[in-house]
């Protein structure tokens, strides 16, 4: 485990964002004894999902089936799937661990994660639904030059997917050592092969239903755990908090804000990356095309917000209950971590703070429930990587191949074949990188994925929807400026420049050349500025036509008229 300093805490904060790579999952973990019941239950989950994939494969014929499950997902189902994308191993294990270690700060963190959703809903969800077909690049390139904009959108999508995937694969490897007691490489290969099978054979239908299955299992498991834990306190939150305070070394200070918002600039920057990155993540945006119309798209955001919010309340209860209940098992703590029944050092929990929810499962439900929760925690990674890979494959087949290389003259069968090949290649690359990065510090990667999504995808998307004067040139330069500034600032930040590249300051500690942990506060404005500058300077004939085309786009955006033609059965 890492030492907690302000930087360590910030890295910790980035993790749930990461949806998979909590610090313990990125640092060294201790391999646990083989957990047979967890492995058995995970195999049951795999068998079930392979059944789903077989069923889905028989319904996956057209490109629309492959990319969007034929548009046949209901708002409720899609809400569960979107929530599933959020309820990752890291938000489950990471946030409950954060609550266990520092109490109220865990709640502050999860709130920051949730409030992006309503904004997405109010401002862009239905516009995206009305303008797009399969990928977010459909929306971004709606009235612009297809080749440059789709190339740019596909590039930034692939950058987002690549960094996200590496973090997930490394997280999977670390998690399997912790939860199942199996070797790192087994996890990476198993996750890679299974996600290839889901996506290649079942497309979006299988990907969505695997995500829904996992979301239901995780919500059910977390509900049971929180309920069983609260029962120990006579269902009185006051009693739970009282005992938590009595058993925590920091005492009453865990009941209020701690060190989370120490540095407002970094906090705001992270908040921006979270909020707008969510609105630019290709695998999340794709989910808006799996529902039949804007009405269902809106419902899916409503249900997703509800499920995610409920889930965060559960993790909060789990973290607090764990403080009091885990201290009844001194054997779960390392020497010195537990003093007279009080948690002196939360990181002294065997396996690290990421094990809080897992240990609580054992405390309230015995070894069978422990196996169930471990299996579900691992299944979450599988479901998330399947969605990521599908988004990456779609960027290659639908944006790069069909629109840029074949220039719309390719046929659908070839396009689907290419997305399957792309899935296969992405799977192999993910396995290779997962193994290559085993002992690397990948904590920065998820922050980078969110920053790129917020700085390249989101500004182009927002400007194409709301600003009629944007031109191809503006979108192209703005998108690349956001992408490059986000990557460059991340490389110069402490997480990469100091921790990964090993540059040390005068005091011998890793340093960065820029003081920002997340570049969003700079790179988002850079992107919008370049969009504006290169659009107003663009006096070409094409730019004139593109500005004129905005009216038609806006009408379709507002009414959805013309959009149903593209999606009707």
């Amino acid at each position: 485990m890492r030492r907690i300093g302000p930087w360590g805490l910030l890295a910790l904060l980035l993790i749930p964002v990461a949806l998979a790579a909590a610090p313990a999952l990125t640092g060294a973990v201790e391999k646990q004894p083989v957990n047979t019941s967890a492995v058995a239950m995970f195999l049951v989950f795999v068998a079930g999902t392979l059944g789903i994939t077989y069923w889905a494969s028989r319904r996956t014929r057209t490109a629309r089936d492959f990319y969007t499950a034929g548009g046949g997902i209901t708002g409720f189902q899609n809400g569960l799937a979107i929530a599933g994308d959020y309820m990752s191993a890291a938000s489950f294990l990471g946030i409950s661990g954060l609550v266990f270690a520092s109490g109220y700060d865990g709640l502050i963190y999860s709130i920051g994660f949730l409030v992006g959703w309503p904004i997405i809903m109010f401002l862009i969800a239905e516009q995206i639904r009305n303008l797009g077909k399969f990928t977010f690049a459909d929306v971004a390139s709606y009235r612009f030059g297809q080749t440059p904009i789709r190339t740019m959108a596909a590039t930034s999508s692939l950058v987002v997917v690549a960094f996200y995937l590496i973090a997930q694969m490394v997280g999977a490897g670390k998690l399997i050592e912790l939860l199942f007691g199996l070797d790192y490489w087994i996890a990476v290969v198993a996750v890679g092969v299974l996600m290839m099978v889901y996506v290649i054979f079942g497309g979006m239908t299988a990907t969505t239903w695997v995500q829904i299955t996992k979301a239901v299992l995780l919500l059910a498991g977390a509900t049971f755990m929180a309920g069983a834990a609260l029962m120990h306190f006579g269902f009185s939150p006051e009693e739970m908090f009282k005992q938590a305070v009595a058993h925590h070394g920091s005492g009453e200070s865990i009941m209020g804000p701690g060190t989370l918002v120490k540095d407002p600039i970094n906090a705001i920057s992270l908040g921006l990356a979270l909020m707008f990155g969510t609105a630019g993540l290709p695998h999340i945006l794709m989910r808006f095309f799996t529902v039949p119309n804007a009405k269902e798209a809106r419902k899916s955001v409503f249900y997703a917000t509800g499920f995610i919010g409920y889930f965060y309340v559960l993790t909060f209860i789990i973290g607090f209950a764990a403080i009091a209940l885990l201290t009844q098992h001194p054997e779960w703590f390392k020497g010195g971590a537990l003093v007279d029944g009080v948690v002196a050092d939360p990181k002294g929990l065997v396996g690290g703070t990421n094990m809080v929810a897992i240990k609580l499962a054992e405390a309230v439900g015995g070894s069978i429930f422990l196996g169930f929760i471990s299996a579900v925690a691992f299944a979450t990674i599988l479901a998330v990587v399947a969605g990521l890979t599908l988004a990456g494959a779609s960027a290659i087949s639908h944006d790069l191949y069909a629109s840029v290389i074949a220039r719309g003259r390719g046929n659908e069968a070839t396009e689907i074949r290419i997305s399957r090949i792309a899935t296969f290649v992405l799977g192999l690359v993910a396995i290779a990188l997962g193994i290559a990065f085993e002992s690397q510090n990948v904590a920065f990667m998820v922050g980078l994925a969110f920053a790129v999504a917020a700085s390249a995808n989101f500004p182009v998307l927002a400007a194409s929807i709301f600003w009629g004067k944007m031109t191809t040139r503006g979108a192209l330069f703005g998108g690349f400026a956001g992408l490059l500034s986000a990557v460059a600032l991340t490389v110069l930040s402490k997480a990469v420049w100091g921790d990964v590249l090993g540059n040390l300051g005068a005091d011998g500690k890793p340093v960065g050349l820029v003081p920002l942990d997340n570049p969003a506060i700079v790179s988002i404005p850079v992107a919008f500025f370049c969009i504006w500058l290169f659009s107003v300077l663009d006096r070409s004939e094409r730019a004139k036509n593109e500005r004129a085309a905005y009216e038609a786009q806006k009408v379709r955006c507002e009414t959805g008229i013309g959009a149903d033609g593209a999606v009707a059965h």
Partner: protein
Amino acid sequence: MQEDSVAAIKGHPLYAELVAKRKRFAWILTILMLAIYYGFILVIAFEPQWLAQPIAEGAVTTIGIPIGVAIIVSAFILTGIYVYRANGEFDRMTRTIREDLL
């Protein structure tokens, strides 16, 4: 979409009303959500001890707990309010425009 149908939709009296109403509504809700969230963050940054005070004399639970949960619930309620009006009133207006023109 054909240019004449774009012009026809734009010329429909309900279209301008729909666009203006939805824009206003979406921005009001957005500002409300941002105000709630950043208000919370500002309290944490400048008056953290305010959130750490007990909910009642002698209680361990602090007022920060119900406030935090209330923010989560408010996000859900605000999206619910939007969906209710958009799937009702706004969709009815859209349908009328569509039926008048097709």
